[in-house]
């Protein structure tokens, strides 16, 4: 509990002392002053809860003191202590605002009670004051709030006013747009299809007046022949539900029976508890016609393109065919040439033997054994002719056999698939087949190294060897030499075909591999030979190198990996 403070003012020291002591004993903090002036000073610093003052004092009496004190803020209650037991003073002091008065002599009990009451009252008063201040504060706040509210209300009102105007303007603008729009706009009752509203363009497009439209249902406007299209569209719209737009072409029928296509955007909204469809349509009849025309044209073009493509493919396949023929042509020419001589000989010898046989028979008939000497000589000649014919035939047959074997070996028709093969076999066969190109004119030297068998398509490689050998022999005018060397290097097998021919200028190195590039006379070369070679070698994962000196000769080196190409598409 806080200790209450009491200021005792009395010009009599004894009185001050006794009162002070009594109050201190009662638990109060006490200060004393001998004059009113002093008391006023102390009051400021001590801030007593209650002041006890004597009335009759020099300089300033008690009444004056109270008056002075009252001028101060929150003056403490003053209890007047007076010796003169006069009603007059009591009344005067009370009027001046004294809280109580005690008449000397008073007992201590009286003093304590009076002080306690005064303090309590002051306490109450202070509290009251506090409450009042709070109340005032609340009041102030309330007023502020009220003010704000009022302002808000004002603003709102203003806004509402503005809003209403804007709404009016919007409505006006919307009307304007509604009627100005280049698109036909309908508002339709979703349940019945009843047209609720239609703009000018809607009237213009359909040919019906606004009056007529307002009595119609939207389905009356659809083209009757194409209702399934409409149905599809409507189901889409239903699926989309409220608030979602759906777009599509719908065929309409105008008042005078003309078919028009509207590209329609629709959305369903809820208005006054019923579903309403907003439908906006643009006349796309002409556009769609143009589009259809375009589509037809495109299709036509595509068809033409397909045809052209087919033609191209065809000519491509013809080219492939030509490539095959190019390789084959050389082969056929070679084989035919090589077979001509033995075949002609066998044919001649058949006749010769038949004739010889007949002559011998005639001879035997005309000349029984041991006849004339002249005849013996004739018989000997026939015999020698027959013997020669038989010998020649044997040779001719051997030759044909060798050629056919080479041919089979070359074509390897029975082995068109990838396998391990010795390239030397292929080279040998090829040499036999191009013998007619080389015959007598060109010396062929072989320097075959010790090479492994390689993973390859032997028949295709033979084609390469043949093209190269034919090229080499054709590059040599008159006599010359073709050298074929083989060796293994860096896991590749290499075949170098060198000739002593006319050579190739360096600027042609890349060109000679182009399909169709030839420097040979028309009819002699198709120009496909090397392009075929390159493709085959590349298919085998290999490459071809050229080294040439114009006027001295050329070396083509075919480089093939021993294990073949890593992977290969199927052979066509």
């Amino acid at each position: 509990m806080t200790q209450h403070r009491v200021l005792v003012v009395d010009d009599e020291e004894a009185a001050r002392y006794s009162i002070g002591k009594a109050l201190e004993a009662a638990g109060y903090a006490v200060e004393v002053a001998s004059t009113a002036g002093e008391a006023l000073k102390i009051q400021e610093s001590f801030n007593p809860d209650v002041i006890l003052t004597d009335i009759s004092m020099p300089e300033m009496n008690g009444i004056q003191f109270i008056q002075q004190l009252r001028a101060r803020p929150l003056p403490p209650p003053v209890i007047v202590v007076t010796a003169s037991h006069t009603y007059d003073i009591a009344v005067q002091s009370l009027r001046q605002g004294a809280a109580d008065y005690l008449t000397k002599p008073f007992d201590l009990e009286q003093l304590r009670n009076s002080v306690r009451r005064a303090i309590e009252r002051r306490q109450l008063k202070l509290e009251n004051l506090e409450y009042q201040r709070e109340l005032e504060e609340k009041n102030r706040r309330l007023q502020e709030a009220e003010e704000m509210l009022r302002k808000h209300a004002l603003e709102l009102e203003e806004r509402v006013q503005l809003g209403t105007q804007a709404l009016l303007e919007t409505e006006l603008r919307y009307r304007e747009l509604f009627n100005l729009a280049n698109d036909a706009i309908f508002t339709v009752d979703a349940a019945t299809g009843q047209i609720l509203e239609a703009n000018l363009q809607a009237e213009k497009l359909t040919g019906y007046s606004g009056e007529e439209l307002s009595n119609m249902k939207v389905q009356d406007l659809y083209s009757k022949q194409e209702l399934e299209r409409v149905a599809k569209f409507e189901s889409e719209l239903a699926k989309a539900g409220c608030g979602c737009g759906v777009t599509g072409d719908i065929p309409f029928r105008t008042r005078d029976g003309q078919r028009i296509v509207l590209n329609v955007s629709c959305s369903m909204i809820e208005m006054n508890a019923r579903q309403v469809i907003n439908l906006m349509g643009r006349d796309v009849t002409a556009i769609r016609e143009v589009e259809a025309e375009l589509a037809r044209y495109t299709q036509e073009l595509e068809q033409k393109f397909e045809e052209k493509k087919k033609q191209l493919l065809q000519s491509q396949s013809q080219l492939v065919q030509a490539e095959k023929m190019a390789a084959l042509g050389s082969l056929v020419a070679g084989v035919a040439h090589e077979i001509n001589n033995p075949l002609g000989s066998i044919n001649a010898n058949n006749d010769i033997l038949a004739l010889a046989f007949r002559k011998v028979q005639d001879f035997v008939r005309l000349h029984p054994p041991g006849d004339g000497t002249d005849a013996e000589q004739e018989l000997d000649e026939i015999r020698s002719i027959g013997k020669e014919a038989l010998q020649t035939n044997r040779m001719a047959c051997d030759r044909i056999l060798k050629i056919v074997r080479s041919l089979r070996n070359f074509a390897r028709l029975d082995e068109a698939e990838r396998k391990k093969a010795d390239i030397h076999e292929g080279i040998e066969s090829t040499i036999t087949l191009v013998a007619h190109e080389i015959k007598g004119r060109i010396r062929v030297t072989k320097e075959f190294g010790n090479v492994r068998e390689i993973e390859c398509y032997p028949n295709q490689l033979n084609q390469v060897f043949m093209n190269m050998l034919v090229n080499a022999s054709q590059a040599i005018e008159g006599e010359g030499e073709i050298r074929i060397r083989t060796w293994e290097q860096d896991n590749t097998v290499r075949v170098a075909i060198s000739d002593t021919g006319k050579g190739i200028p360096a600027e042609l190195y890349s060109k000679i591999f182009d399909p169709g590039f030839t420097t040979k006379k028309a009819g002699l070369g198709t120009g496909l030979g090397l392009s075929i070679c390159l493709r085959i070698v590349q298919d085998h994962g290999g490459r071809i190198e050229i080294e040439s000196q114009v006027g001295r000769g050329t070396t083509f080196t075919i480089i093939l990996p021993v294990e073949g190409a890593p992977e290969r598409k199927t052979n066509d």
Partner: protein
Amino acid sequence: MTEDNYRPTILIVDDEEMVVTSLRNLFRLQTDYHIVTYNLPEKALEDAGKVMVDLVITDYLMPRIDGISFLARFKEIQPHAVRVLLTGYADKENAIKAINHVGLYQYIEKPWDNEALLMVVKNGLEKRGLLRALEKKIAELDQAHTSLKSIQTELIKAFM
């Protein structure tokens, strides 16, 4: 044939021994022609002046000298010999070109047909025979002319 006992000479040139042998034997059995054969065209040309040849058959495809060049050169030495070319499958075009160039009588494709070959040769020899007869007539006329001239000279001499 104008001459009964005339034995025509035929020259055969082909680098293939078996072809030469077969042709030689064919003619030996079927005809009484005198047959001369060569494997090397240059050798044949070397000897070209030695024997009078009525008809020459040569292969087209031969090392160093092809049949057409051979015939061209042979023609310079013996212009009267009838020229026949044996050609392979691929050489036909060249042969046709050569018909005018070397005055080819006929070309025969390999593998040849024996009867056809014999016929071509027989006809060729007949032509050659007619030419020979004509030559002979001309020579005779020349001769007659010359003798007439000399008689005339004699006569002029006698009357002068």
